[in-house]
């Protein structure tokens, strides 16, 4: 953090990129990331099993509560992930400027578009060397907002709408999210869309893990370790 604080925001780009380490992800952001990672993993596994339950258990019904536990894990993880997401939105207001990257895509900046184009070319193997980025690269930022944030909001809204069916008419879940069900047609349609959303998130996770590992190896800055320590390390001191 000290290093970044020595720099003024405007003159910074050149100077910051010459630094070898910048504190990017503050502790709450890192904590949120890993809570969400394990939460989404739980949600995908239990969600998959709710739509396609495991083979029947034998014996008396009174001795088992398998579907009950699976559903409980799903709902509990959903609450954790949702509350963490709300906390993350709060942190975008009070955290450092990197904490806002997830929600505010700077499409009004020319430089951003140039870097986006460069990044697309880098992923199509048309660029020889990648550029340095302190926070997200523009392509990453775009996917983070367009796929992850939008996907999360969609899953939270449809998820709570389905949950409201169990809590019943008049519950706060019903009052806040009950309108979703007639919007999609009926309950079964919301189930179908929620499941499509699950696959959307699975595809996001596949891509996210792949590009994080790839960037770790091929880019000029650290990735995975940054989400653990918060520090972005650069592998060379060329400015761009």
């Amino acid at each position: 953090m000290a290093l970044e604080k020595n720099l003024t925001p405007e003159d910074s780009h050149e100077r910051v990129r010459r630094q070898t380490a910048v504190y990017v992800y503050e502790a709450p952001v890192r904590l949120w990331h890993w809570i969400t990672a394990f939460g989404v993993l739980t949600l995908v596994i239990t969600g998959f099993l709710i739509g396609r339950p495991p083979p029947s258990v034998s014996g008396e019904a009174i001795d088992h509560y398998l579907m009950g536990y699976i559903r409980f894990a799903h709902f509990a993880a959903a609450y954790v992930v949702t509350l963490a997401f709300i906390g993350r939105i709060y942190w975008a207001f009070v955290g450092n400027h990197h904490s806002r990257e997830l929600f505010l895509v700077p499409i009004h900046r020319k430089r951003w578009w140039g870097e986006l184009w460069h990044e697309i070319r880098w992923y199509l193997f048309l660029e020889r060397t990648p550029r340095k980025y302190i926070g997200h690269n523009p392509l990453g930022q775009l996917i983070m907002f367009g796929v992850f944030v939008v996907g999360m909001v969609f899953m939270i809204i449809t998820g709570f709408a389905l949950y409201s069916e169990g809590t019943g008419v008049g519950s706060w879940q019903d009052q806040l999210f009950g309108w979703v069900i007639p919007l999609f047609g009926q309950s079964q349609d919301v189930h179908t869309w929620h499941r499509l959303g699950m696959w959307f998130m699975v595809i996001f996770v596949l891509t996210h893990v792949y590009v994080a590992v790839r960037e770790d190896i091929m880019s000029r800055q650290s990735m995975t370790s940054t989400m653990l320590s918060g520090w972005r390390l650069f592998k060379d001191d060329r400015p761009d």
Partner: protein
Amino acid sequence: MSNTETFYQVMRRQGITRRSFMKYCSLTAAALGLGPAYALQIAHAMETKQRTPVIWLNGLECTCCSESFIRSAHPLVKDVVLSMISLDYNELLMASAGHQAQAALEASMENHWGQYILAVEGNPPLNEDGMFCISGGKPFVEKLKKSAEGAKAVIAWGSCASWGCVQAARPNPTQAVPIDKVITDKPVIKVPGCPPIAEVMTGVITYMLTFDRIPELDRQRRPKMFYSQRIHDKCYRRAHFDAGQFVERWDDDNARKGYCLYKVGCKGPTTYNACSTVRWNEGISFPIQSGHGCIGCSEDGFWDHGSFYDRLTNVNLFGIEKNADRVGMAAAGVVGTAIAAHAAVSAIKQTTQRKKKEAEQERNS
């Protein structure tokens, strides 16, 4: 037609004792889920109120709603038709036909303009100016609009009138639409189901007569008292669902043991209706009790979701008819393959670049 007679007078005239009348009021209150005090309110209303005229129209439909209605046990349908309401026009039950029937309809509309309840079974097809359903020599949609104008309230019987049902299934050649697409200026109460439960039908009518207002409705305009919970919420097989005990195939041992029908496509978890509590045919049984999953007949669009026996129903998008898992797995497969290919190319690039660098360094040294 004697409009001055109250319900109570009509019942007494038919030889019903006061004791039976009070019993009937209590049963009706119980059927509506009301407290014992309401039995007296119902009795009071029956003693003082005149019978409400009801005009019952049939559009594009199969008459299963009427067939269900005439099997109501609590209250008995004969009590509803002969004592509670003045059923002025009903194509299934009325003795008259042709011009005589038409005259009865017009007379009732004229005499009770603004007072009658319009009950609609079936829906109007709009394509070709409504020529796919002709009633009394005119398109049904005209008859519907005209009758709705003078109605106090409109009841949409069944899934046809409420959602469109089978005749509105893709690609819906006759362009059949739910009645609230045509009647937009009147309160429409939706009583979906294919057919709706008889006691639910008579229960809705009884409520409207007793309290002289429409029952409390949910977001989709269904009476809350019958449609606020899913079949699944009150299903007697729910314990097997929570335990994780399912019928895997129709002929397996689990089916004989009466396990949950979730895996063989039961739509109980997504269907709002009173089947698992009120049941059918004087409370004898309901589909799940008979060993067959719920098909979700009271839900919008149930006819267009693919097989009744699939847990995950079809997505109808861009001409695809596959369930969410097939769509999702295919997409994840494509992305997974793309990632693998991209990783391979990246690895090749990385090694060739490193080799080039090493060669350069060797040359320099």
